[in-house]
């Protein structure tokens, strides 16, 4: 299924969701990402990606209790699903294989 293919940004977001474990929601993901990638990004992008990930079944969401600092709204907390974990593993595997396959001399010209 085409939908399970992970985009690069999707992969990063999914990794962040996994990293934050039980506290992955819009703002948290956004802040984590912008501090790690060292560039500002908009809530919209994060949201849409999370939505997409959920549609693909890679994350699962539930609502928290409403909270005062959010103007009385609840968070939507995301946790990674089994399918999500598998997709990450798969992506990692492909990368590792690629890395392993690179001949040593390929980077020589840099020196």
């Amino acid at each position, binding site marked *: 299924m085409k939908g399970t293919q992970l985009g690069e940004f999707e992969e990063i977001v999914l990794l962040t969701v996994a990293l934050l474990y039980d506290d992955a929601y*819009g703002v948290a993901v956004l802040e984590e990402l912008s501090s790690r990638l060292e560039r500002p990004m908009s809530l919209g992008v994060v949201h849409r990606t999370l939505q997409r990930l959920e549609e693909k079944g890679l994350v699962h969401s539930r*609502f928290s209790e409403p909270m005062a600092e959010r103007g009385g709204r609840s968070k939507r907390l995301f946790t990674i699903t089994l399918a999500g974990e598998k997709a990450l593993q798969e992506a990692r595997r492909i990368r590792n294989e690629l890395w392993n396959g690179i001949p040593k001399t390929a980077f020589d010209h840099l020196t």
Partner: protein
Amino acid sequence: MNRRNKNQLQSHSKQSGIQPPRWAEQLLIRITAPYIRDEILGDLHELFQKRVHRYGVTKAQLLYMLEMLLLLHPRLWRKPGQSIHIDTKQTDYSDPNPMTMVSNYAKIAFRKLNRHKSYTLINVLSLSLGIAGAILTFTLVKYHLSFDTFHADYNRIYRITTELRTEKVTYSTGVPNPMGEAFKSDYDVAEKVGRIGFLKERVVSVSPQKKFKEDVAFADADLLHIFNFPLLEGDPQTALQERNTALITERIAKKYFGDIDPIGQLLRIDSSLVVTITGVLENLPATTDFHTEIYLPYSNLQDHSPWLVEKDWWVGFNKEMQCFIKLKSGVSAAMVDSNILPAISAKYYDKENARIFQFKLQPLSGVHFNPKLRGYMEKKNLWTFALIGFFLVVTACVNFINLATAQALDRSREIGVRKALGSQRGALFWQFITETALIAGVALIIALGLAYLVVPTVNQWFDIELVINPLTDTYLFTFLVGLLLIVTFCSGAYPGLILARFQPVLALKGKLSQQSAGGFSLRRGLVVTQFAISQLLIIGTLIITNQVRYSEQANMGFQKDAIVILPIPDHQKSKITTLGTQLSAMAGVQNVTFFDSPPATEFLASTGIRYASRLKAESFNIAYKTGDDQFVPTFKIPILAGRNLASSDTVREYLLNEAAVKALGLAFIQDVIGKTATINGQSGTIVGVMKNFHFKSFRTAIEPLCLTTRREMYTSCGIKVNPTNLKATLAGFEKVWTALYPSSVYMYRFLDEDIDRLYKLDRMLLRLIEGFAGIAIFVGCLGLYGLVSFMADQKKKEIGVRKVLGASTSGILWLFGKEFSRLLLLSFVLAAPLGWWSMNKWLASFVYRIEIGPGIFMLAILITFLVALLSVSLRSVKAALVNPIKTLRAE
């Protein structure tokens, strides 16, 4: 989220103090799909609170809005994807999604309009014509209102004008020469005072071969600080300060010098003055009444025309010698009018003259609108234009309402189904408004295109420079948006309400009749309005046409055909005599005369008269014309008593007109013959009385006039020619003339063209009304055609039955005809008195005018009737000729 939670938490958030912008939240609530709404708002809120701490409130709010913008994406309002699993208890699906609703409206509207092509076409066409008319009138009105409003602080700039209060008040744009100085030195209310003298049609030469006829102005340096005429080159501080310098506009610089730098070039003005160009002005905008493009220092006027600037000469003024002031801010013009200007009159005149010479301020923005002070037109003309434009839009809207309500019946099934499925009135209403907006929007775009295409023609007619560009012109843009809204609501609201009000059961059964589908009587009323507007415009067109034709063709009291007028640059006796003899010797020339102004002009100076042995000067002013002994024979002015003037170079004898004799209080015209009269300070014998002739336009009554010989005043030469072989004659004139006046520019004109120019504005009004009447009638006919089509559809069966029972075709035609004839007559009853009243008001500005006879009204109703008949019969004949079997077989 359930309601209890919401309430509880809203109270929480209130405690936290600073809130994100409420409107933004509301907006998001409206467009966000319910299942992610809480999440998004919550996230935004949280971010906002953090940012308030970090960057402060303003920045946080800005960032909030930025985030909101970046959130805009179909995912925001789209329904959740399939594989999503959410707890439906926590979401709220009851709110309809406005985005989908609007797109659905648009889709339905497109289908509907596509299906009823002729209906759409009629509506779009009539609306675009109406709107195009409105756009044109709007631009025209705005153009005229914007005259001379581009000057900085234009509402503090005034022109001092003169009111001469003799027996009747005469107004002049000019003031006595010392006025400017007196105003500046005696009172401290003006920031700047600038005198300016306009001299028309001077000969400006760059080199002996390169000569131009140009208007020039002698102006105080301060005038450049009053008016906003920016310098492209040269120093505004020193411009017009030094003698023998000049400023010219970019256009003139291009015309005279091409690509050569004009600064430092020399210009010769007439024969007396040589000036150096020290500055180049930006080209004058179209919306100014100041068309002079060459400015010279006021001090140079002394060298050029010393008689215009005699010192302390308070009792004479010239309409071209004007004075502009810029009041200090806070000084009211009313105060200057009531205190300062009368004080100036009192100080510089003796007691009697102080009463006669009164001065008033005229605001700069009023210069364009006061015909008494040589303004272009009266403001009320503009309102007439605006009203006509409004009428056009109304007619187009009426069409729309008529057709839409008539068509409502067709849609009854659709409405029925919609209602049965739970549509609310509001929703149906808005659906219809969307449809209207679509039509109006398309019409607006077409109208813009039309207006854009027509503008060059209109500019040519009116001799103006309109520009239509809604992208740069914010006024026009606002107007268009406003017009779109108004048209949409005015024409969409009523049919929308009708549609929304249908009873679903009746509608589904198809039992709605014409009657219940939106008041047939209302539609009648609208048709009557439409016809009334068309007839009003037709009546206006007819009356103005008649009056203008009357003014142009009526006997002015003198001969005006086949007379060529040449200018006389100087009045040396030898030259005038030579020109006279050479011209009369030419073939095809019947008469030659020299004079200061042709028999009929827009303006004519008037002066005081003292008659015979009477001690005091008369209380009326007499118009003053000079011409040689050939003036009367050339223009074939009848002499009622006495004889024509004898040939002379100076004032010796006078001819009066009948009006003058009457004003002198004499019973018989013979009484004045042989008496002396002192006119303009020079005495002479009255040798004859001329029959009254129109020496101004038909707007003014024939006033007292005198004619005398005085060579130094002559500025033109009138030649009565034989119209055959005119071309050769004119070529001959040029040769003779240029040989005599090598340093001047040859120009000729015909007297009758001159006279036609007196009615320029009336002809413009006529053209406008003609065009708009045409549009109004056409739009009305379109509506009528549409209406009859629907009627014919509705009555298909009735016609079939009637035909089967033996009705004749003409009988069936009458079925349609009688209805519309009745409406037409009714509208005539409305339009006729209204037209009579308004046109009488217009005609009142003419002293010599046509009578509004019944013929005009008959013609108006006849025209409308014929046109209406044509559009009604087009469709009704078809309906009447249909084989009844086709219409009856359906059941």
